[in-house]
Each structure stands twice: as structure tokens, then as C-alpha cells.
């Protein structure tokens, strides 16, 4: 069977020829497993607790998912490219800290002045920091050929350390700004709702739509899938593999920075320990959504479903009062199950794939 990523994707969406009737339904279920899992989770928890299945609660849970969802989208892009980005949790923490640092007022001693950048400038600068860290990752991986795991692991520690150094272990709290300085509005991202939907969820939807568009409709998306599926073949076909790699890590850094902004805005405080181990949840969401960790396979829709499955499951466990240790067990079980199903779908040298 042809291994060109575009055709593989088409095969996923159009389904198999109707050779055997019953087998077709099984395939439908297998391909839509993340969606059915989500339905099953909602059904089970609605039964276990009357507080679960209300619009208000769904919106609150979606708000919680927004943080992990944003990280997962960036992680999907990197994983599609055949790499991995372990530093996203630390970049989330660092960007929150940078935003807090800028909101507190930057003191320039040599000029004798304190700068209070307006909120839009803070947002842009923070996203710039995320992009910068991503660029460092990308350059290390693409040009210096450092394995992705190792390079991003190093960046994880460096970014975390920089965040801790900047705050001395404490948190930045005066993020609301004051009228006199003209920098109000930071908490708008976290606290407000448009038509009842929290802004965090709207940001997630926008980023997901942009990422989906990027993957399906642009040349960059084609390049991502091809260099993830078979890097050597892509390079020989004229895909600028190295440039794509640097760009994809920058995009991951940007997504992490946006997530950091949304989180510190929700909490109106920026701590250097924020986002600790969040990268693992992001990877879990991508895997549950059906992406292959070796690269070349995966969709934004799947990743979003994966993020919602994890988020709704852990919030459901909290609502029914299950110990947090059980939550860890369940999250792990779901991931193992997802990887098992992944290998059933994609395994067997493409016989069923």
C-alpha cells in the first residue's frame, strides 16, 4: 500500500471499500474511537453525578481543557514532523513569568525610568519569548542534529531555571494593572466570557482552526506531513526540511506561550512552577487523538478530541470525589488503551490501515 501521507489521510477519511459488511462498522468505531470515548465518558459521569452534565460545567471543563489543548496543538505539529517537544510545560511557565515581569514594570536604571508596556505589547513580547525558545530548539535539532528528545529536555530545564531565577521562586501577582498606567485588561483573557463562552475556549478554537487550516490547505502542512513520514524522501523531493523543522518548533513555542498567557490570566498570577509536567499530558492528548509518535500521521480534530477526553475524565473524577491518585491511574490507563488501539489501526504492515 502506498505510504504517501496525503493518500493515507484520504484513506482515513473516505473509509475502506465495502468488501465485508460487519468489518466496516468495526473500522468506523476504531477510527472514531476518541469521539466514542468522549461520549462514553460524558455518559458515565452524567450517570454518576447530577452536577456533571450541565452547560455551565461543560464550559468550565472546556476552560480547563483550553490550556492542555493549546499545548497539544503545538505538540501535534512537532510530532507530525517526527520530533517531540518536551519543553512546552517549561515554556508555559516561563511565558507566564515574562508576562508578569513586564506587567510589574520594567526598570531601566541607566535611563532612570520604569516602563509599563500596554497589555497588547506584553502579549506580543511574551509570544516572542515562546517563539525564541522554539527557535533555539529548532536550530539545535535541525542544524546541529541533536536528537529532539535530548534538545527539548535540555530546554525544559533551562527555561524552568530562567523562570525560577527571574522570580526567586516566588510569584508575580500584580497582573491586573492600574488605570493610571494604562495597562489594564490582562485578566480579560482569563475571566471574561463572550456570549457565555470563556475566552480561553475561544482562543483554543481559533488556534485549532488556524492549525487545521495550516495542515490541510497550505504547502507548509504538506511539507510537515511528508518530512514526518519519510524525511529523506521529503528532502530529496525538494521540501525545505530544516526550515520546516525550525518553524515547527517555533510554532510549538508560540502555542505554549499563548497557553501560558491564558493560564496566568485565569489565575491573575504567574508562578515559575506553572506547567510542571504539562508536556506529558500534551503528548497523551496527541496520542489519544490517533497521531503516530513516529510522525506523518495525525489531525487537529483527533488531538482536540484527545485533549477533551483527558480533561473531561480528570474533571469528572474530581467531581465525583475520587482520590487524585486514582486520577493518575486512569489517565495512564487511557493512554495505554489509546496506544494499543493506535497499533491495531496502523499495525500489520498496512493490511487494515
Amino acid at each position, binding site marked *: 500500500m502506498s505510504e504517501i501521507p496525503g493518500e493515507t489521510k484520504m484513506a482515513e477519511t473516505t473509509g475502506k471499500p465495502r468488501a465485508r459488511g460487519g468489518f466496516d462498522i468495526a473500522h468506523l468505531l476504531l477510527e472514531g474511537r476518541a469521539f466514542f470515548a468522549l461520549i462514553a465518558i460524558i455518559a*458515565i459521569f452524567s450517570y*454518576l453525578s*447530577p452536577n456533571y452534565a450541565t452547560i*455551565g460545567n461543560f464550559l*468550565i471543563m472546556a476552560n480547563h481543557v483550553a490550556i492542555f489543548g493549546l499545548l497539544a496543538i503545538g505538540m501535534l505539529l512537532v510530532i507530525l514532523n517526527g520530533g517531540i517537544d518536551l519543553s512546552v510545560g517549561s515554556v508555559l511557565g516561563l511565558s507566564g513569568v515574562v508576562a508578569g515581569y513586564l506587567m510589574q514594570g520594567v526598570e531601566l536604571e541607566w535611563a532612570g525610568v520604569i516602563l509599563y508596556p500596554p497589555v497588547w505589547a506584553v502579549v506580543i513580547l511574551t509570544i516572542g519569548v515562546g517563539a525564541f525558545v522554539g527557535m533555539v530548539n529548532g536550530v539545535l535539532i535541525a542544524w546541529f542534529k541533536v536528537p529532539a528528545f535530548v534538545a527539548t529536555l535540555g530546554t525544559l530545564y533551562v527555561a524552568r531555571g530562567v523562570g525560577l531565577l527571574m522570580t526567586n521562586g516566588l*510569584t508575580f501577582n500584580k497582573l491586573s494593572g492600574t488605570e493610571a498606567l494604562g495597562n489594564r485588561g490582562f485578566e480579560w483573557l482569563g475571566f471574561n466570557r463572550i456570549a457565555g463562552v470563556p475566552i480561553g475556549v475561544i482562543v483554543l478554537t481559533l488556534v485549532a482552526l488556524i492549525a487545521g487550516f495550516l495542515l490541510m490547505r497550505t504547502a507548509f502542512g504538506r511539507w510537515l506531513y511528508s518530512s514526518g513520514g519519510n524525511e529523506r524522501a521529503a528532502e530529496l523531493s525538494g521540501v525545505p526540511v530544516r526550515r520546516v523543522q525550525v518553524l515547527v518548533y517555533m510554532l510549538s513555542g508560540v502555542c505554549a506561550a499563548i497557553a501560558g498567557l491564558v493560564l496566568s490570566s485565569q489565575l491573575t*498570577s504567574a508562578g515559575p512552577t506553572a506547567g510542571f509536567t504539562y508536556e506529558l499530558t500534551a503528548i497523551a492528548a496527541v496520542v489519544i487523538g490517533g497521531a503516530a509518535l513516529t510522525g506523518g500521521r495525525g489531525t487537529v480534530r483527533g488531538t482536540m478530541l484527545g485533549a477533551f477526553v483527558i480533561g473531561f475524565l480528570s*474533571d469528572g473524577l474530581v467531581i*465525583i470525589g475520587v*482520590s487524585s491518585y486514582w486520577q493518575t491511574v486512569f489517565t495512564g490507563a487511557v493512554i495505554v488503551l489509546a496506544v494499543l488501539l493506535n497499533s491495531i489501526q496502523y499495525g500489520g504492515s498496512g493490511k487494515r490501515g
Partner: protein
Amino acid sequence: MIKFTKRTLLAAATALPLMASSVWAEGLISIIVNDPANPYWFTEGEVAKATAEELGYEATVAAHKGDTNTESRLIDAAITNGAKAIILDPANADGSVGVVRKATEAGIPVFLVNAEINESGIAIAQLVSNNAQGAALGAVQWIEAVGDAGNFVEFFGNPADNNAATRSNGYNTVISQYPDLIKVAEEVANWDRTQGYNKMQSIMQANPDIQAVISGNDEMALGAIAALKEAGRLEGIIVGGFDGSPDAVEAVRNGEMAYTVLQPVAVFAREAVIQADYYIKNGTPMVADEKQLFDCLLITIDNVDNYTAPFTLTN
């Protein structure tokens, strides 16, 4: 198809035993502690839960492990579940102000235990140990054991917890009166035993001559003791802790730790729930002052036999 159905049935079957009662007796009290892996916070949660159930409420204990995002999600869950009161051990003196405000605005009274937040008027009550008094008590005992000259090491708790600075300041106020007591190292070990162990090992490499260790809490002190034992240097070194946890009391009994300061966590965890119950029934706070301090007690080899239950000293 069959595989999928089997899987769903299995999942549903495993979920059944977790079925929680959806009818709360007098109401739900949500208790949120830091990390039950630490016996201090474990006792805090268990005593609060037992008191709540005694008074006829349903109680759940959840853990935020020091992460303000997790704390925010747990508060959201408590609001969704329609809790009548929240007993919270805040993750961060500044960062947790937002979540306490969120719960209060949702109409749920919040009672803080063990750590405070840097804003009053939002929580109904903040019940904390009198850390300043406890630190002074411990430092005086430490001086008695160490003498007035020597090199010592201090372990500092999580900087985001006000108690860390309060205890350190308390120690330094007493110790600074003896100029021959020299602090050769001060390390942040975040209330954690493993971090205390690792840091102590590094400190011992840098400083071969140490007479004493004073720590912000028991876990860090126990880590330091483990490191000293491993290097064979525990003999003759005075180690002081703070909390009164069962492991530390065991160490005091064995002569490994000189003393520990008991935090009346069992007392104020119980008191918080009683005050919450009063507020739920009467709509006004039971005690007029928001910040309430509970005195600490000293545990040394002399009164170690009075330690009858975790964090409980009977006379």
C-alpha cells in the same frame, strides 16, 4: 465490534464501585489540602473529614500539591458540586487570592487552614499555627542543645509559603543573639525530604565542620538526618525540626533528632470545620477575628511518650 463493547462494559464495571452518593446529607464540605504524601497534610485532611462527617456532612478531600492551576480546578469542582463550605490549605499566599475570591463570589464560604493568603476580608477565617511562637520555642531549645558557638546549616521551606519566612525569621531572631553561632549554609528544600537529603549531601562536601542543623519542617530535617547517617556523621550533630510528624517523633525517640515543634494541625483542622458548620447554620462567623493563631508545643525526648496519635500530644 465485540472488542469495543467488551471494553466499554469493563470500563463501566470498574467505574461502578466509584459511584458517589448524589444526595449529600447536610451538604458537602470540600477539603483541599496540599499533598497527602506528607503526614502533616494527610492528618489535616483526615481530621477535617472526620469532623465534617461527625457533624453530619459529606466530605471529600482533594490535593493540589502546591500547583495553583490544580487548586483552581478543584475549587471549580467544589463550586460545581454545590459545596456548602470549602476548607482550603492555600498553595500560594498571593497566587491563591484569586481562587478564594472566586469561591466566595460563588456564595461558598472559605476557611483557610495552615497557611494564609495576603489579603483579608475574602475568606471567613484563616486558622494557622502561631509560627512565630513555634519558631522561637524551637530556636530556644536548639540553642540549649547546641550551646552558644558552632557552625550550623539552615533549611528553608517553599518561598511561596509565608510560613517558611516566618519560621526562618523566628530562628534568626533568637540565633543572631549569639555571634559565635555561624551559619555556613542556607538552602531552600521546599518542605521535601528528598531535597533536604540531596542538599545536605552537597553542604557536607563543602563544609566538613558542622555542629548543628535547624530546619523549617520535619521532612527536610529527616532528609538531612538520612544524609548525615549515610556519611556516618550523625553522631554529635544537633538536628531540629518543625511540625511534629510521626516520623520526626520517632527520630526524637531514637535520639537522632533533638526536638521538634508540634503544630496543632489536628486542633485547627477540627476547629475550621466546626466554624464552617457554625457559619453554614447561622450565617455569621463564629469568631470575630479572621486570622486565628494556634500555639505550638515542643516535643523533646522528655515528653515524647505523650505523643499518642499523629500530631496529638496528650498530657
